[in-house]
Structure formats: C-alpha cells, structure tokens
C-alpha cells in the first residue's frame, strides 16, 4: 500500500474514524459487545475500505471541517447523527463498511448466538416446519388459467 493509495488513511482520519465508530456503535457490557472503536474492529474496517475508500474519506473530511475531534462528546454525537442521517451514497458506503467490520467480529457473532466462522463448510440447520399447514391449500381447485380452455 503506497502513501498515495486512497485506502491509506492519515492519522487525523484514523482519529476521526475511531471517534465516529465509537459513537455509531457504543460498547454494551451487558451483552459483551465491544464498541465500534475497538482496535480489532477499526483495523478490519480500514483493511476493508477498498473501493469505498474515496467516498468514506470524503465523509471523514466533512467531519474534520466541522471540528469533530475538538467537540465535546454531546456535540460530537449530535454532529454524527446529523451527518449519518443523510442518505447520500457516501454515508451509505460508510455505514456498509462499518456494519461489515463490526458484525463479523468474533465477539459480536458470539454475542448474537452465532459461531464465529464462515458459512462453508459446516452450514446451518433449520427445522422442516409444519407441512400439515399445506393440507387446506391442497383442497383448492386449480387457480391457473388453462389457455386451451379459453
């Protein structure tokens, strides 16, 4: 990764991002859920920027212009909620990468009752469900139109 790589964040951008992710997803000790600002999650986020780096850096620049790092926490939260409430593509990209990094973290998956692993090769189990519910449908006459009778 070169210094000019759009996916390389500056120290200032990392600081904004860390504060922002902590506001977006606070820790929940009762559920053993880490904060979005957790170092492992933050690093996963930065590794995952990829094709979303440019729009996300534009959002971070907007936070920088608004003095985000210097604001008291309550005002920083207010600013974050205003900007994150917008439906611009840049905001959606930021939300997407934050959610992806956070909800695949081992601790987060375990807290939500999921094994921390990819779907393959173990897969999952689901119940068959109640097939007797179909009995009433089986008693219906055909409802498709037979064009040969038209």
């Amino acid at each position: 990764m070169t210094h000019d790589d759009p996916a390389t964040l500056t120290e200032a951008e990392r600081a904004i991002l860390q504060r922002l992710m902590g506001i977006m997803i606070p820790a929940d000790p009762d559920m053993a859920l880490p904060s979005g600002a957790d170092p492992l999650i933050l690093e996963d986020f930065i590794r995952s920027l990829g094709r979303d780096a440019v729009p996300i850096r534009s959002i971070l620049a907007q936070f920088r212009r608004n003095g985000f790092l210097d604001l008291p926490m309550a005002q920083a939260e207010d600013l974050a909620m205003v900007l994150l409430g917008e439906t611009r593509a840049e905001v959606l990209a930021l939300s997407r990468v934050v959610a992806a990094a956070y909800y695949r973290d081992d601790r987060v998956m375990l807290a939500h009752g999921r094994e921390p692993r990819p779907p393959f090769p173990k897969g999952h189990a689901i119940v068959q469900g109640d097939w007797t519910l179909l009995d009433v449908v089986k008693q219906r006459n055909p409802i498709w139109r037979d064009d040969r009778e038209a």
Partner: protein
Amino acid sequence: MSRYDMVDVLIIGAGASGAAAAWSLADTRMRILCLEQGDWVKSSELPANGRDWEARRYTDFDIHPNRRARPTDYPINEDNSVMKVANFNGVGGGTILWTAHFPRMHPSDFRVRSLDGVADDWPISYWDLEPFFEQNDRLVGVSGLPGDPGVPPRHPPMPPLPLGRTGTLYAKTMNGLGWHWWPSDSAIASTDYDGRAKCINLGHCTPGCAQGAKASADITYWPAALRAGVELRTHCRVREITLNAQGMANGAVYFDAEGREHFQPAEVVILACNGIGTPRLLLNSASGRFPKGLANSSGLVGRNLMLHPWPQIRGHVDDELDGDRGPMNVIWSKEFYETDRSRGFLRGYTMQFGRTTGLVNEAITSAAVGILPWGRDHHKTYRGLVNRRLIIGIACEDLPEEHNRVTLDPALKDSHGIPAPKIDYTISDNTARMMEHGIARATEVLEAAGARNIYTSRSLLNSPGHLLGTCRMGHDPERSVVNAWGRSHDVKNLFIVDGSIWVTSGGVNPTSTIQALALYIADQMKRRLGNLFDDD
C-alpha cells in the same frame, strides 16, 4: 488477427441458455464452440468460504455489474433507467449470482393478447415448452412439491426445501387470509443429486453456493456438454458477428484475455448473451447490409426491454425465525397471478416469501432505511431485528413497450474499446398499479403475521433487473427479430436462445423458462438439420 478453424456451431455466451443449447446440440456430434467473456468461478473463491461473505455481496459478487466491475464485466449506462441491471459474466452467467427460485411461466403468459387484449401472444405455447420444462427440471435438479393448484402439473425430482420457522409463519398467515401458497420450486438440491451434494443451509444463496447444491449452469449443463465434446473458450469477448457476401453469418471477431483479436469462422451462430448483451452485440455488428444493426430490419433489436419491477416489503416480528440460516426461497403465492380486471390492472404477479440475510446485512439494510439507529439505541434495536425479518417480493409482469430499450452509448466503452450498452427504461402505469396492489397485499400479510417496521422498497439498487424482450420472437418479420424457433428473420444461420427473445415477461423469475426455451430451440434445430436455412 488470427483465424481459427471453422466450427459448425458457434455459441456466444456460456450462461443459462448457452449451456442448455450446447448440451442439447452436442448429441448431433457437430463441432460446437462456445465463447465466453468471463471465466470459470471456482467454488473455493465463493464468498461463503470466508468471514467477509456478506460484504462481498457489495463488491466482487455484487449482482450489479457496474458496482462489481470485474475485468470480465462491461459497463452499462443506466442513468435513464429507474431499475438497475443484474447479471454475471462467467461460465454459468447469471446462475452464478441468483437465488435459484425456479418458477415456470404460466400458460396464460404466452397468450396475453388473446386472453387479456394486451401486448402480443407468443408464437409458441406453454404446452410446446412443457416437455422441455420437465427435461430441464431433471437436468438442473429442482426441489419442489407436485400438486400445486396455482400452476400446471409438474414433477420436481427432489422434495421441497424445508419450510423452517420462517415458512411456517408465512404459511399460517396465508391460511388465515385464505390465500394460496405453496413451497417454491428451487434449483437447489434438497437431497444428493446427480453428483451434487445436498443443501446444507449456507445462507443467502445469491453470491454463489460453495457446496454446489445450487444449480448454476457451470455445474449442471457444462460438465455434461464438455464431456460430450463441446469446446468452451473463456476470456473471449466478442466484438461483432460478421457476414459473408451472401448475407449469412460467417463467424465472430473477438478479443482474448491478452487483448489480441481473433476471427472464429462458423457455419451457424447462436447468441446467448441475454437481454442486454445480445442486442448490444447485434447493434455493434452493423454493416452496410444492416446499417441499423445485424438482423435488425424490423428496427426492434434492443426495443421492448423488460426488467421485472420487483418491490420488496419487509417487516420484523417478535419471535426468532430462520434468519439467514437457509436458502432465501421459502414459499410462493399465485393468488394474484392471473388477470382480474376488478383489481385495476391487467396481468398479475407472484408473491415470493423469503428468509433473510445475515448479521451484517441486517445492520446495513435496516440502517439504510432508518429502522436501525446508530448511537445509543443501536444494540437494543438490533436485538429486536436480527433473525426476525420477513420479506415478501412482488414479481410483477412487465409488459413490452418499445421506448424501453437498449442502445449503444455514444461515449462509454468496455475495456476492449467496444461500445457499451445504454438502457432507457420506465415503469408503465399498468405495472405501477400492479406494484401498488402487490405492496398492499404484502403489507396485509405482514400485518397479519404481527410484523412491525413494515417498509417497502419500490426500486431497490439490487432489485433483480431480469433482462428480457429486446429481440422478440414472432411470425411477422416486421414485428419481431427471430421466428418461432429462434432463427433470425434476416440472417438464416443466426439464432438467439436467451431471454431477449421473450415476447412478454410473465410474473416469475425467468431462468426456468429461458432454459426450457433454449432446449426447445435446440430441439427444433436438430429436427431441421437438413433444411435449417430454408425459408419459413
């Protein structure tokens, strides 16, 4: 430019239709070659192998080619379209990235003019295709349950996928409303089948099936076609179809992986690039004989694009359901499929009831629509959402309109400098009324199921965008591009077997009918080998 030896049949495109046609024609023992601009997708490369499997649905396994932007993709100008395109360029084509929902079109779909006074009848009927639907179901491996009063008789070779908790809730709710439902036909193996292992519920099936339970054409038709002697060349992007002095197609010019140009001569050319790729290639093959585009004396190449508007209605219930732990496909309803003029529109739709997505996508999609807040209430809200989502898709029939079309973009080009397609597409008033009817009925279902946060997405970025209708079939050369068995009216050795030849779209996912139609056309070709190029 290098020149290869002549082949008997040149198929362009290795997706659902090209694979089926190649397999069927292989028993003629002709020399058959397929050119595919993409590559094989290894099962080990599919997202389900990794922890980032959900995120990859938004990058290299996005169904939207402009977002996916693989080297094997070509750009599409969709600026003047309310819907986006879904495709995949590779061996298996769109069946690599699909949910494998496998309904057939209904008999009435082929007779819309006769029955409902709209659009045009197809030149063939459901019953012409019926044996090929059955053949395709066996070859693909379909799971389903016979006896559905909503559709004509069919015989899925495997039992249906589990209803699960999600399907059971849907079923109870539909019974309470007195509306039809039935387990969906799925091209997903519910048992071990023809060398493929059964579904183990990896989750949402769209971004490829690492288990091989989902019947993508690369693991169904292609292995059999290759064993039968068909040649498949990947990373070959066709620039144009060429003509000889007699006005017959004589081959194709294509670029290989290194960007070198080649000419592949052929006795017969079959296009299988679907509703955007096929008209794009024909328009890019304009010549002095066909200045408006190859095989385009009707002026209809590229016109009548149908994309299947597909609103989705979502809600969350209190009890935990299957979440993403199972295929997306659960049940369908044909209650509102056939025309009932009292509803205020003609034709109809299938309701498709789905399981949902995983932890990541629950957060992404719920945050995007404002249901899941960021900040202090995030976790509390999320706990009430995850694994509790219901989702109903409304698969609306999209009637043909000539102003909905594919043209060549004057500036946009692919990585080989070939002009890219541009689509112009709007949703008709009839379809808009149909969508609103479906949204209202789906909302009733969700309310009856006890759902909250009911949200409708009318035009999702990742809505299916099936690609149909741009080289329609018909008897009249002035009103159609190909005849009743897929042969160009203008060029007697040029055939089309993909979704572009559809006259109307039906209200169902198209792949079952696309493949049955490809098998039908291949069968017609085999029956006429002695006089394949004669006048109709």
